[in-house]
């Protein structure tokens, strides 16, 4: 039976790949390659030569610590989406849930599905290792990838069974894990990895998937209802309504809608991005010789890139927008302003921390503020403005936006803040391209 299901899944995957073959096999690899090679060249040679950005190097133990921290964060942030897929709730019900398929086969299918979902993450990990020249570690992402779905499935089912699907307690546990990853000797990491694999993979299958998944279903559905109710009571909508007054009137309803959806977890990636921004902010404390502007640009990019999954997740509902008197330009402008708005405070946070840690004369402080604000606007505008360039695939849009953001950082920070003016022709070009794409989407 597994073969029947696998055959169908592979057929669907094959058709998706065939339809978008140019994106997956030409545009994607080319953009990844260009971003990796050019980025490496900029950071290691060119920018280092100019003297404002230090060459980036990473030791093997640090790479291992970072890798484990990233994996732990992946488990944490994937916890709720994974739980929503594991338990057949109204939204995640699949035809397989209605058919007489044994638990064993369902588990294998789920494992295979998760392997496929995890693939881009581990490929990205390999690209990063290549970027930092850690070729001796390249085999590890492949090895971990093979076992990781079992750990994720096992952990999610075990946690929901013994505690709840609420991520508050989980955040405490993962906070402790992060501290342990800094404190523990790297030599012990392999032992812990083996321990968790041996614990969660069999437990997840024999008890979790076979028994708990069905028994805890009602409890999980109840959690989702309570969670949603609580989210709606927070009243984020009214706060955001006030905030959106700074947005031009013709796109205000669109931006406000996007902000409310974000506050209500329509884009789960927002919390991952907030945490990553927090980590980047903290790392400014010990930034070495790397310019604070580079950290600021990275944080703005991470926060503004929430716009990509938002846009992609809204695709099924875009027919609603098409039925309303909204132009393609308004749709594009709304996304541009959304990206700017959600990342707007970041330059000020970095400026405040930098001045607190490393006080400097008022004139220098003001120049720094101007540079950071211009950089923040440039990066967030490029991320928001390039929203239609990734063919509505967030990963591809990240790559395109990252490439442009690296160039913007280089021009504004290394050369001259006046280079900010280059942003306008770029945005104009992105707008033209976006309008054509959005109008074509409306027609098709």
């Amino acid at each position: 039976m597994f073969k029947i299901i696998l055959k169908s899944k592979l057929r669907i995957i094959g058709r998706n790949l065939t339809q978008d073959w140019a994106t997956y096999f030409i545009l994607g690899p080319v953009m990844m390659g260009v971003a990796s090679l050019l980025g490496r060249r900029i950071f290691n040679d060119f920018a280092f030569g100019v003297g404002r950005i230090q060459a980036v190097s990473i030791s093997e133990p640090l790479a291992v610590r970072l890798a484990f921290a990233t994996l732990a964060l992946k488990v944490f942030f994937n916890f709720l989406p994974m739980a929503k897929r594991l338990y057949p709730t109204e939204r995640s019900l699949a035809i397989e849930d209605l058919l007489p398929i044994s638990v064993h086969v369902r588990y294998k299918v789920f494992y295979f599905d998760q392997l496929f979902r995890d693939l881009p993450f581990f490929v990205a990990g390999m690209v990063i290792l290549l970027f930092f020249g850690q070729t001796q570690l390249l085999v590890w992402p492949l090895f971990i990838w093979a076992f990781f779905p079992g750990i994720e499935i096992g952990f999610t089912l075990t946690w929901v069974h013994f505690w709840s699907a609420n991520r508050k307690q989980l955040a405490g546990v993962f906070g402790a894990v992060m501290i342990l990853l800094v404190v523990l000797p790297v030599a012990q990491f392999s032992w812990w990895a083996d321990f968790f694999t041996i614990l969660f993979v069999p437990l997840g299958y024999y008890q979790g998937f076979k028994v708990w998944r069905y028994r805890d279903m009602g409890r999980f559905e109840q959690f989702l209802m309570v969670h949603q109710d609580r989210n709606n009571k927070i009243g984020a909508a009214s706060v955001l309504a006030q905030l959106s007054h700074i947005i031009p009137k013709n796109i205000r309803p669109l931006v406000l809608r996007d902000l409310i959806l974000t506050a209500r977890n329509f884009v789960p990636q927002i919390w991952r991005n907030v945490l990553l921004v927090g980590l980047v902010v903290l790392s400014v404390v010990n930034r070495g010789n790397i310019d604070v502007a580079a950290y600021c640009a990275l944080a703005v990019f991470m926060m503004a890139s929430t716009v990509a999954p938002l846009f992609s997740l809204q695709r099924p509902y875009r027919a609603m927008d098409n039925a309303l008197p909204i132009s393609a330009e308004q749709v594009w402008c709304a996304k541009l302003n959304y990206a700017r708005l959600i990342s707007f405070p970041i330059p000020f946070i970095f400026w405040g921390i930098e001045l607190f840690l490393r006080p400097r004369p008022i004139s220098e402080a003001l120049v720094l503020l101007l540079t950071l604000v211009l950089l923040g606007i440039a990066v967030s505008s490029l991320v928001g403005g390039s929203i239609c360039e990734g063919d509505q695939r967030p990963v591809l849009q990240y790559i395109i936006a990252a490439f442009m953001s690296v160039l913007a950082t280089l021009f504004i920070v290394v050369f001259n803040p006046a280079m900010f003016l280059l942003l306008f022709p770029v945005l104009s070009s992105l707008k033209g391209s976006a309008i054509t794409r959005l109008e074509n989407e409306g027609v098709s």
Partner: protein
Amino acid sequence: MLLSVSNVTKRYGDLVALHPFSMELECQIYGLIGNNGAGKSTLMKMIVGLIPPGKGKIVLGDLNAKESPEEVKQYIGYLPESPLLYPRLTPEEFLRYVAEIRGIAAPEEEIEQWLNLFSLSEKRNAFLNDLSYGMKKKIAISAAFIGKPPLLVLDEPFNGLDVATMEALSEMIVKYHKDGATIILSSHLMAYIDRLCQQVVILKKGKVVAQGSPDDLKKETNQDTFHDTFLYYSRDSE
């Protein structure tokens, strides 16, 4: 195949989705009706082994749905309210997939019959995401019926269908019942409930407010149509 539901309840925290509910049926067409949120879909999901009952027991033949949720599905064809289809498969491929999982060796004839019945033969090579809602619904109905399961649980089967298809489907339901199948269906189209069902239960906020044959309920409430009978019970129980 006898379906026995004894004192089944379901709670979601403080919300009681279904108060103690019992029924026993074999080879009947049974209507579950009620306004939105009455608990119909919850009861159906418990019967088909998707969610466990809070209390009580659901037994199909000699299988307890709570203890053997996977085995129970072998004998049930379930049509959920929204069709669950893979967008990048064709109708034919999707139905073959369902048939293969149900263990049907040569499903071609049955698939052909369903495609013809719903006038979908011309669309056999189109992707499911290119079909209209009504066409998708027809495929989902075919998937529920395929393999002739002894128990059919149909949640709003007439939603989104054109009039001719509704008629064809109701004839199919009657035919399957005559062949020995038990059918549980929910619908807001009271004319079909009246015409098809031998027994109905009216649910309101998880509680049974009326139970019996449509004719008996009409007589009891002194109403001419079952539509008015349903409205009577809906208002009466406010």
